[in-house]
């Protein structure tokens, strides 16, 4: 039993992070339930002695400024994403105590999927869900939890089920899931229910300390301003209206054995470099790519399945291993199966501003639609390598050099149509030298399908030879 009830130590003494002149009082309206809840949470953090390892994830909503108040680790998440952010923090720092704090507009509307998936994964986090049946911060619009008949700025005649559906019961919904261990709905109507909430918050945090799994405490909380009521009336309004729709109850409490621990993340330098396949020299480089060479901006395009995305990755990775700046930007688009896929690759000795290639100096078109789509964008003096086995009609703009290579036919002759992209790689390397062949071969050796290695190496050589023959051929004057 405490001797003194006073401001918990897990609050800052002065809220110096606030931009307001007032650094002593919270920014909440008179009678707002956030203050009570903050107090209960801070007190529980104090009593469990977990402040040093607690991370508080603030939502979007009135509690967005949680980091003004809580003397713990703080992260402010994008609207609805608090449980996803909390998941990341908890997984990266398994020993941390992560509190995800969200309102009903945040959690039950835009973030409905995040909370559902986090609960379903049984993330060992504590979610505090503040339900005041309204969007408070933005001025009292209808929330998913708004009661039927309740007047808000967006339901001025009252919420009607035929138009806006029914109030969403989050606790009941989540309690149907297998993974959550503790789900309770509390309220802040009066002294008794506040103490009940106090208990629930402590329990939810204790479960996390014991690594039992996912817990959520929903709190019916007054919003006197949004409800246009006096503070005292707003508490009565919870009793008279909210608890009938959102009955306070323990919806789930099955603390299983402590959760099986996920493998601890490793942050040691060597282990990370090893996992990334990066050599020590590259990692400790000065940040400048070796030497000065022209920037290559490439668009690779072809049928889905021809391997243009992988080709782009391999080129970018090769450049990365050589210590160059690289980017790889895949574009799948809302395409049908068998449609065209493309990716943008930039390899440079300078930092890359944008991975988007508006005007490539090299286009690799592995089908007719690709050539038609991108040829006009190629920079004057640029090169277009196209698969002459598929591309039959060629109308290239002036000042662009076309290099026809029967990529797919070569691949078929080698016995595997899938290696057409590697044939293209051979041609690209021979024509541009944007990456070295040695490092590219090294990457081919590391691909998962070892059975394809031999034919891949043959394809690379065939592509190079085909390109070399092209280089020796005189370029038609019209295309120079």
């Amino acid at each position, binding site marked *: 039993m*405490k001797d003194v009830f006073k401001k918990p130590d897990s609050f800052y003494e002065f809220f110096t992070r606030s931009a307001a002149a007032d650094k002593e009082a919270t920014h909440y309206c008179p009678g*707002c339930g956030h203050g009570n809840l903050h*107090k209960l949470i801070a007190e529980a953090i104090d009593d469990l002695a977990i402040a040093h390892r607690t991370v508080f994830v603030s939502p979007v909503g009135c509690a967005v400024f949680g980091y003004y108040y809580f003397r713990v680790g703080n992260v402010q998440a994008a609207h609805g994403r608090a449980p996803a952010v909390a998941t990341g923090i908890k997984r990266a720092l398994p020993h941390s105590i992560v509190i995800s704090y969200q309102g009903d507009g945040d959690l039950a509307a835009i973030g409905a999927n995040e909370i559902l998936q986090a609960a379903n994964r049984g993330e060992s986090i504590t979610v505090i869900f503040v339900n005041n049946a309204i969007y408070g911060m933005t001025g009292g619009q209808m929330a998913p939890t708004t009661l039927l008949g309740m007047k808000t700025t967006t339901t001025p005649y009252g919420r009607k089920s035929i138009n806006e559906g029914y109030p969403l019961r989050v606790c009941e919904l989540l309690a149907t899931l297998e993974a959550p261990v503790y789900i309770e709905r509390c309220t802040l109507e009066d002294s008794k229910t506040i103490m009940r909430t106090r208990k629930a918050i402590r329990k939810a945090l204790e479960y996390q300390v014991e690594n039992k799994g996912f817990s959520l405490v929903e709190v019916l909380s007054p919003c006197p301003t949004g409800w246009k009521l006096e503070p*005292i009336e707003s*508490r009565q309004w919870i009793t008279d209206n909210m608890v009938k729709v959102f009955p306070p109850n323990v919806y789930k409490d099955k603390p299983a054995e402590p959760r099986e621990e996920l493998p601890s993340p490793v942050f040691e330098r060597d282990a990370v470099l090893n996992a990334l396949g990066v050599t020590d020299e590259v990692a400790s480089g000065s940040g400048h790519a070796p030497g000065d060479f022209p920037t290559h901006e490439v668009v690779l395009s072809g049928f889905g399945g021809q391997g243009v995305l992988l080709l782009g990755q391999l080129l970018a990775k090769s450049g990365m291993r050589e210590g160059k700046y690289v980017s790889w930007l895949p574009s799948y688009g809302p395409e049908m199966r068998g449609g065209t896929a493309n990716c943008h690759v930039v390899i440079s000795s300078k930092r890359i501003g944008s991975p988007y290639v508006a005007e490539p100096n090299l286009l690799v078109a592995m089908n007719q639609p690709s050539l038609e789509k991108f040829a006009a964008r190629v920079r004057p003096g640029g090169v277009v390598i196209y698969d002459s086995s598929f591309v039959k009609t060629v109308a290239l703009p002036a000042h662009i050099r076309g290099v026809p290579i029967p990529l797919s036919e070569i691949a078929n002759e080698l016995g595997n149509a899938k290696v057409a992209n590697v044939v293209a790689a051979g041609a690209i390397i021979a024509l541009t030298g944007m990456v070295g062949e040695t490092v590219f071969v090294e990457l081919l050796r590391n691909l998962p399908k070892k059975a394809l290695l031999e034919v891949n190496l043959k394809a690379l050589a065939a592509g190079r030879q085909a390109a070399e023959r092209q280089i020796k051929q005189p370029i038609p004057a019209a295309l120079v």
Partner: protein
Amino acid sequence: MEMTDHALLPVPPTRPWVDVTSRLCKGCDFCVEACPPRVLGFSTDINERGYRYSFYLGDGCTGCGICFYNCPEPGAIVVWRQPADKKEKKVLS
């Protein structure tokens, strides 16, 4: 009702005591309504933030802490349940 003078607070308090920092009070009236022995008053004037504020009438606090939990403002209410000096005396005797 008279405004409670801050100086009335005996430091350290010799009996259960509630101290409302009037400048932090936003006048929601929760503590006044919730106080079981009804020993909190509500001002007629306003504080520097522009709110009417609650204050201890000066006698009858049991130190239950209910006003503390009802108050939404983290630092506005402090309640001494068991005065520190009493405990010290026990240890000394």
